[in-house]
């Protein structure tokens, strides 16, 4: 064995927090490679946001799954904020969108490209992902996986340990850093091989076995995002915009006006933090939800509709009148009395 072969090789793994990347890391660790994890925060992998905010989810453990997985595997995890760079991937995907607003192929290519930059900067040898041939309709098909390799610049530095035997040998295999026979040949949408391998490694607790914590694959979220883009002069967005799409009930009252009404205490508390960025409405005569106004009231009718809706979602919904406070962003406040909107007066087309 020459000196080069004796040197411990180093790989960085794209760790999502799901089972596949967890298994991929373990398979490579078993071959004596030093592995560290990298996790990209796009703003859309926001499962944690909902769990943190909504009391409905209070029974779920409030943990970041990527961090948890890293600890189980005994690896370092580098979390990289790519919110700004990711805008271009979402707004201008070369390969288009999937079923919703999910630019999966461009997204995977972007992440591998970032990982290529990372390994060059940190003097690592190759990259691991938990991808499985045929598992996902867009980015994990036999025809699209080479696109990711080529367009990311990852080429043969990119190892997919769970499907490696289905794919051409990579640099790590050709150089003998990895034994190809000890890699796997998983393919297709079945999860059984992954479950079996998890059992073999003694992994009992793992998150979302089918992966996919990205909000862009969620139909309801995609509708809200499309609505925002349709009704704004530009599709550009800020992190607060995409987080707010997860909060509350959204009513589009006019192209220039949307109101967001909190669904529960946790959301109301979180939305309180946005009162300096939005006009807000809240009932004072009865307990009820906080409402943020995205846009402006151009007519009294629009203000009255918003007030009546907020009254409707308060505990005064059966009262003849509810008193509400409208607070401007500069803190000035005005009180209004209004009859709550009747359930059958809420237009279906308002609800986003």
């Amino acid at each position, binding site marked *: 064995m020459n000196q080069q072969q004796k040197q411990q090789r180093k790989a960085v793994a794209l760790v999502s927090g799901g089972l596949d990347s967890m298994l991929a890391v373990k398979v490579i660790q078993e071959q004596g490679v030093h592995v560290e994890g990298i996790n990209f925060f796009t703003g859309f992998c926001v499962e944690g*946001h909902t769990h943190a905010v909504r009391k409905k989810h209070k029974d779920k453990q409030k943990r970041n799954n990527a961090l*948890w997985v890293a600890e189980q595997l005994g690896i370092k995890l580098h979390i990289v904020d790519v919110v700004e760079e990711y805008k271009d991937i979402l707004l201008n995907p070369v390969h288009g969108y999937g079923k919703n607003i999910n630019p999966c192929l461009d997204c995977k290519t972007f992440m591998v490209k970032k990982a290529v930059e990372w390994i060059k900067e940190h003097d690592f040898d190759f990259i691991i992902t938990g991808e499985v041939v045929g598992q996902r309709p867009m980015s994990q098909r036999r025809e699209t996986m080479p696109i990711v390799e080529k367009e990311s610049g990852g080429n043969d530095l990119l190892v997919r340990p769970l499907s490696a035997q289905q794919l051409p040998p990579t640099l790590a295999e050709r150089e003998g850093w990895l034994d190809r026979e000890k890699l796997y040949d998983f393919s297709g949408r079945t999860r059984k091989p992954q479950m079996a391998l998890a059992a073999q490694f003694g992994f009992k607790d793992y998150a979302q076995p089918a992966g996919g914590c990205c909000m862009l694959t969620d139909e309801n979220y995609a509708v809200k995002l499309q609505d925002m883009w349709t009704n704004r002069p530009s599709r550009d967005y800020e992190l607060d915009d995409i987080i707010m799409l997860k909060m509350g009930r959204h009513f589009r009252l006019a192209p220039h006006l949307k109101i967001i009404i909190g669904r529960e205490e946790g959301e109301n508390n979180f939305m309180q933090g946005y009162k300096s960025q939005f006009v807000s409405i809240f009932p004072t005569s009865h307990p009820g939800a906080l409402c943020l106004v995205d846009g402006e009231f151009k007519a009294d009718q629009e203000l009255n509709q918003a007030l009546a809706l907020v009254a409707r979602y308060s505990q005064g919904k059966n009262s003849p009148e509810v008193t509400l406070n409208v607070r401007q962003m500069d803190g000035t406040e005005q009180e209004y009395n209004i009859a709550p909107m009747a359930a059958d007066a809420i237009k279906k087309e308002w609800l986003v």
Partner: protein
Amino acid sequence: MSNNQTEHQLDARRLLCPLPVIRTQDAVNKLHSGDLLIVTSTDPGAKMDIPTWCRINGHEVIDIKEREHEIIITIKVNQQD
């Protein structure tokens, strides 16, 4: 606190998972071994995630306090590299 130890504050309030961890990571990476970083967060997830990040990266959580809706975590930095 020793002469070489400096104390730094990080305001991570109103940020939700994983941003408090990212901001902690970025702040710690600029500090020296022995420095203290006091992170204030309003995300309940930070109570679990920041200590996990510290454990896997070799830093020490020396105190966790809760005050009203805020979680205050004191980290002792240990730069290994």
